């Protein structure tokens, strides 16, 4: 089953095309890597998938349910007439659908005034109205999985970057999303800390978590992802089996891009 699907997505900023007709889907249990030079629109794409940004035209579905349809060359979001970020934020139908996905940011974006535990627990309790004790048990389980059970009562500023990113992953996991997006999860970290994050994500892949990962770690994408897409100038230049695409690219542009990583 397709957990997520996007079709003919288009997005411009001030008349400049950033995404020019991108389509892909993600099946249950699949790990999809998105690679491409910086400025090629990868973050914008993830922001569209997570309703932080709207697309100008195209279609989108979660779990087979159509969230965005294309109507006369413009996208139309379920439950709203207007295309604006404000309208996305106030859209009750979209808020419900948000529980299907999580997003891990490049720079963590933990809430600094809350303890690690509260960072992980608050949304399930406050947004999803789940039982506090149940959520606390679940939050501790995920923190433990991230190797951070002893840091539960610490504040984010007391943790290393790698630890903060693991809290951010636990925070996403605690909402039990069907799919997790990662936007360059190791790019803000010192090189010696990237390994711990990649390992955690690899463990999640082994548990068949459905994930979309934007990354510049080519070896990681090659070994962990099932499929990869290479984005350039707002279009998918090449897509296919991750190992194949990264070790044996077909297109000139992909080859040129990958050469920078060897």
């Amino acid at each position, binding site marked *: 089953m397709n957990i997520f699907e996007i079709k003919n997505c288009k997005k411009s900023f001030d008349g400049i095309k950033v995404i020019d007709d991108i389509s892909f889907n993600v099946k249950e249990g699949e790990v999809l890597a998105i690679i491409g030079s910086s400025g090629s629109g990868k973050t914008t794409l993830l922001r569209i998938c997570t309703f932080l940004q709207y697309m100008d035209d195209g279609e989108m579905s979660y779990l087979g349910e159509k969230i965005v349809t294309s109507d006369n060359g413009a996208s139309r979001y379920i439950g709203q007439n207007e295309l604006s970020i404000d309208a996305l934020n106030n859209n009750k139908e979209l808020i419900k659908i948000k529980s299907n996905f999580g997003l891990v*940011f490049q720079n963590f*974006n933990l809430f600094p*005034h809350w303890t690690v535990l509260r960072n992980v627990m*608050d949304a399930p309790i*406050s*947004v999803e109205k789940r039982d506090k004790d149940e959520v606390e048990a679940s939050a501790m389980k995920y923190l433990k999985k991230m190797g951070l059970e002893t840091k539960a009562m610490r504040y984010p500023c007391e943790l290393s970057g790698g630890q903060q990113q693991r809290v951010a992953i636990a925070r996403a996991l605690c909402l039990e999303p069907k799919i997790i997006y990662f936007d360059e999860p190791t790019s803000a970290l010192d090189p010696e800390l990237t390994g711990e994050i990649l390992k955690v994500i690899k463990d999640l892949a082994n548990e068949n978590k459905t994930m979309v990962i934007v990354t510049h770690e080519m070896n990681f994408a090659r070994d962990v992802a099932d499929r990869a897409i290479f984005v350039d100038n707002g279009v998918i230049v090449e897509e296919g089996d991750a190992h194949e695409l990264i070790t044996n690219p077909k297109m000139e542009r992909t080859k040129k891009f990958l050469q920078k990583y060897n």
Partner: protein
Amino acid sequence: MIEFIPKILSGAKATLLIFFMTLIFSLPLGLPICFMRMSKNRFVKGIATVIISILRGTPLMLQLIVWFFGPYYIFGIRLNSDWRILSIIIGFSINYAAYFAEIYRAGIESIPIGQYEAATVLGYTKTKRFFKIIFPQMVKRVLPPVTNEVITLIKDTSLAFVVAYAEMFTMAKQVAAAETTIVPLFVAGLFYYIFNYLVAFILEKIEKSFNYYS
């Protein structure tokens, strides 16, 4: 000599009344004004911008006179004697709310966009996002400039003399003139200084209580 003490004390009481009433009303009132100032609606934002600009751009002394005499000179309304202190509290509260609104706005605007984005993806509504995530962080950021304003307010309370309100400074001046001695003015100065010191001490404690995160 000692007989002026009760007068000074009643003046001190009046000064404290202005100070605390102004804080109680202006600190919360700054928030809706700040929201108006940050509104996406150009009309609402325009009104707030003009009001803030007038309140900050004219002397508070003048504003106090307008609040006190305005109802009579503009509308011909005669108000009873309570209007004196009421108009002072209104004048001070609205003036300080304008300053606090701008401080709050700077505080809110300094919070990284990533905080909004993380909260939005986690499913918080706009209201919850503000009160649970943005507002508490804003409080920490605005405490130092708010402290400055509060200290200024203590000294500003003496401006109530323009509508002949018997606050601390007015009383001290009266006694000094009647008894031809400068001692009451020194006593008043000492009062302001000690009060300032206490307020600064308390606010510093509050600021420190937010040091558990950075």
